[in-house]
């Protein structure tokens, strides 16, 4: 299945794009997607522990099972104000 990682804030710099498509096996979780992303982008890998993820408009657990076509947003540390 194919999912899309949406890279918000500084994560777009770490991954070199605003969006990254990833191919995963059926039944894998958001955490598996982040593992794959970390292998491809070392700058993301070193910051991964501080990053939340969102699917739709809700923060989601990394253990959430993902489905074909999902869009997973990377939410790095925020700096509103």
């Amino acid at each position, binding site marked *: 299945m194919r999912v899309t990682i949406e890279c918000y*804030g*500084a994560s777009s710099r770490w991954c070199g794009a605003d969006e990254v498509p990833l191919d995963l096996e059926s039944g894998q979780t958001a955490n598996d997607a982040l593992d794959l992303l970390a292998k491809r982008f070392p700058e993301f890998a070193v910051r991964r522990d501080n990053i939340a993820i969102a699917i739709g408009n809700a923060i989601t657990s990394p253990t959430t099972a993902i489905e074909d076509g999902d869009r997973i947003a990377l939410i790095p540390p925020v700096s*509103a104000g």
Partner: protein
Amino acid sequence: MPTDLPRLRDGALNLADWLTELQPADCGGLAVFAGTVRNEHEGRAVTGMRYHAHRALAEARLREIEAEAANRFKVVVDVAHAVGELGIGETSVVVIVRGGHRGECFAACRWTIDTIKQAVPIWKEEHYVDGEARFLDGVAIKSIAES
């Protein structure tokens, strides 16, 4: 301001837009906080700021913060945050609190801006006079209940 307007706005905010109406009759207090773009950060001269957001989540969180502040402090709260390019001195965020007395107004205003800074997926990209730009370090996003 009408409550059906988005809380996330493109471009700088105009604080006066939130202050045009008479206070509700049962409100004796009005507390206002506005965040603006500063011309210096950690010794570097700043030329402007670009605000990035996860729009759907940020809009939802701003509305949840308004509701939670109203519930906690028994006041009326309006918030808005800018996205996009802002210049020095322009307004990026407003918090307007109307309530019976100053105590709950000040407390709600402080809680609301502190929570916005910790719980809303918005990112500042600062631009400097030498042409460089960088995203500011932030804090790991929290839930509103954690704030």
